[in-house]
């Protein structure tokens, strides 16, 4: 190897690291800001993992995990609701699942992105329901708790009510989030898409 090619490679590695960092920051900002759009549209979903899924598709699992965890911490800092910190585990699971789905090319078409989102919702709810039940008794001050309370009032045992509420909301939320990411990736101009090698895999 020539003497000049080694620094060039180092520089390229460095650029990739900084680029990942900027993309992670963007992913976190999307996670935190998209709620504003969802609130304006009065949609019964959160979509607070769109940024994590996008980073998983554009960069990879490690960056997506960092984006997910940072979003959870900053969300707690901005809202003051620090009791939601244990749900950071769900963001890690979403990041890993999204990276695997992107690797399989499931976000290339809406027809595969929506079922991938349903699968993601199933996995996410399987993590969030036990956290909600064991640590918070099913009360997390979101729309999910209203569903839990209605189901409990209808006679469902608490564990069943918490699980049913988590699965119903997460399946819908993640299916829409994955569809949105698929739409975003397909709308990327060719010149912009070429800057993300992970998309070509």
């Amino acid at each position, binding site marked *: 190897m020539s003497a000049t090619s080694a620094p060039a490679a180092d520089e390229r590695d460095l650029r990739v690291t900084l680029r990942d960092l900027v993309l992670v920051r*963007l992913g976190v900002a999307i996670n935190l800001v998209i709620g504003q759009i969802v609130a304006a549209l009065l949609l019964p979903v959160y979509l607070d993992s769109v940024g994590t899924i996008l980073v998983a598709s554009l960069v990879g699992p490690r960056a997506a995990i*960092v984006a997910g965890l940072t979003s959870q911490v900053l969300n707690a800092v901005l809202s003051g609701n620090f*009791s939601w910190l244990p749900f950071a585990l769900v963001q890690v699971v979403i990041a890993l699942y999204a990276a695997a789905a992107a690797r399989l090319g499931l976000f290339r078409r809406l027809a595969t992105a929506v079922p991938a989102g349903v699968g993601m919702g199933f996995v996410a709810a399987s993590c969030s329901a036990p956290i909600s039940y064991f640590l918070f008794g099913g009360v997390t001050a979101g729309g999910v708790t209203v569903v839990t309370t209605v189901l409990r009032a209808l006679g469902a045992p608490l564990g069943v009510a918490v699980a049913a509420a988590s699965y119903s909301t997460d399946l819908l939320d993640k299916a829409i989030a994955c569809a949105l990411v698929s739409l975003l990736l397909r709308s990327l101009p060719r010149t912009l898409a070429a800057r993300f090698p992970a998309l070509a895999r």
Partner: protein
Amino acid sequence: MIGYVPGHSPLHRAHPYTTLALAGALLLGAFAATRPVEVWALVGAAAVFAAAGGALRASARPALLLSLPIWVLLFVLHGLLGAEPRMVVGPVSLSVPGIARALVLGGRITAIVLGFLTALATVSPHRLVEAMTAGGVPFGRTFLLASTLTILPRMRERAARILEAQQCRGLRLGGSVVARLRALGPLTLPLVLGALAEVDEQVLALDARGAGSAARRTALDPPPDSASQRALRRVLLVLVVAAYAWKFWRMRG
């Protein structure tokens, strides 16, 4: 108000890691506690923590406002809809184990929220970044925490502008759920694609400032740390481990 409140209390003067360790110990302790008396002792500890930081007023009000909806839901879900046996209080029939559980869960959330709001009110972001830099934390982590907070208002403003622009072009925000879902694309795509197009520009700007350098940075004004504070942080760690050991030992018994 949620955020840093300047002051000269012992918590303001303490090393940021010490204050955060105290808040973290409250969080972990709250999840280890299973009896109302234990949890409410932690709520008391959180109140003492807030008073020591001179932030009782600044933290207690938002903590109560944040905890109140949770208390209401806990009362309905566990107090009213909880298991037998029940007791009658006036016109209301309450679940005895449900009320005990609601007291544990509500107290847990109140202690956590009060503890972290106090940390937020007494830890200056600038001192935290300096402490992290002095501690050798990689630039990437400090950059992520500090710079994301600065770009958020810009992104929020941009989202609001896109919302207004699309409405001017005839986008309707109301209607059926399907119609509102369809509106997600025209609102989200310009926001995200615009931000993605700026990524390379931001990378160049950061690179030009030496952000990619692997060299250890020198903190200009690192907060002083002392042996007693380091010892306190170690004691907190031991206490948390002991609390979980006690919890699991009791569960086995």
